[in-house]
């Protein structure tokens, strides 16, 4: 499995398909950090924006490998493990981005304590005074990475093979994930809006949002892996 992950990660890195999601995310969290009045608020935004980034990273990975090359790998390692590796790599990439982005928020957001903090070190100390805020932010990010992965897996090959339809439905899934009440991502972000009044309150995602996100990933990955093991060509109109 490690060989498969290395192979897929190398394809993603060397094909430069990660650049647009990364630049997009950097822009989005810079804007978010500038526009939020507290660390908790900045972390909400950081998490929310992981949904589109991970969804498009997943799309990039799912469309990167040619059919013939996938066939060779599937014969060597089995189509199920090959597809799992294809889905795990963008999920892992999203997790790394999430940790980096949370650190960025800690260093740049309004200090978490009422006392004005001086310098980056002061901000880290201020955040360390309120570990709940950072931990809550990381959990929100986790929920959003999972939801983004599920959206990417459901709306792209091998399930949706037409490029236009796949792109539009990925976008639609992202919007739904962020605004629909039933979405674990929107539940995780929206859970603490009542507490925004206090900038010191940690914004914890509800346990149901985390459970929901895990279920969503389990279902969408299962469907995607099953389709990968049955279909030979992923380009639209073939077969």
């Amino acid at each position, binding site marked *: 499995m490690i060989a498969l992950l290395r192979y897929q990660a190398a394809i993603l890195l060397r094909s430069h398909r990660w650049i647009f999601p990364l630049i997009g995310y950097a822009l989005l969290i810079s804007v978010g950090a500038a526009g939020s009045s507290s660390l908790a608020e900045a972390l909400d935004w950081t998490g929310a924006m992981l949904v589109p980034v991970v969804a498009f990273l997943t799309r990039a990975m799912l469309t990167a490998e040619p059919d013939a090359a996938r066939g060779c790998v599937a014969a*060597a390692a089995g189509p199920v493990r090959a597809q799992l590796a294809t889905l795990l790599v963008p999920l892992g990439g999203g997790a790394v981005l999430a940790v980096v982005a949370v650190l960025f928020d800690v260093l740049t957001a309004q200090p978490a304590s009422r006392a004005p903090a001086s310098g980056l070190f002061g901000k880290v100390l201020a955040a360390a005074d309120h570990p709940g805020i950072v931990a809550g932010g990381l959990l929100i990010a986790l929920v959003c990475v999972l939801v983004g992965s599920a959206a990417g897996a459901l709306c792209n090959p091998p399930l949706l093979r037409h490029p236009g339809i796949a792109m539009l439905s990925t976008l639609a899934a992202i919007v739904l994930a962020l605004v629909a009440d039933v979405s674990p991502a929107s539940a995780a972000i929206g859970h603490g809006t009542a507490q925004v009044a206090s900038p010191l309150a940690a914004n914890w995602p509800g346990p149901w949002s985390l459970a929901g996100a895990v279920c969503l990933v389990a279902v969408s990955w299962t469907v995607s892996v099953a389709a990968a093991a049955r279909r030979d060509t992923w380009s639209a109109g073939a077969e």
Partner: protein
Amino acid sequence: MRLQAVGKRYGLRQPWVVRDVSADLAAGRLIRVSGRNGSGKSTLLRVVAGVSRPSAGKVTGRPHAGYVPERFPGGLPFTGREYLLHLARIHGLAGGAGARAVGEWIDRLGAASYADQPVRSMSKGMCQKMAIAQALLPSPGLLVLDEAWTGLDQAARGTLDDAVTERVTDGGTVLFVDHDPARLAGREDERWQFSDAGRVTILAGPAPQAAPQLKTVTVRLETTNTARTLDQVRAIDGVRVISVDVQGPDAS
């Protein structure tokens, strides 16, 4: 390895591409799969290689498989050698063993001069060699070749013929499709003939096209060591000694 009533279709309302194929794939067998274009050969090969799951029936006891697809269009962001090293690891060849196998197959296929080029910049034949090398890296117990000879130069075609023979001699099973009836002619143990509607008839022995190549020739050899000469003649590929009539002073 065994196929039990294997069928494949791409969707519930789609027609069956392969229908009700049952077969035992014994060790050390060379199997030619033949049929018209679009008759389902490639689909059956992918199911046998484990690239895709059958829609009906099951495949059991599949050994480690190497698969060479019909076309290998590159499109990967690696050099040839990097690609093969990744595939060696995926095939389970760790570190040194993988690098050795990669070097060996690059040399045998005559790809050493461009193995460090990006796969994207390779010609059809060069890409095909990468596809063949990755399948042969682990000395697989099951080798599946979907028109793997297409686009190869003469020397590499010979190497692939030899590699197929090695796999079969080592007790591996080799399935191949090739539209050239002379390809490995006379050496196949079974032919799987596709008829219409995805049905397969399994025939034993070489294809009938190969029959005219079997000729009985009487050869007179002068030698001082009869036994040794006979061994040498028997060792020639494709020659079968049917009867020997020893004449002369040293006859014993």
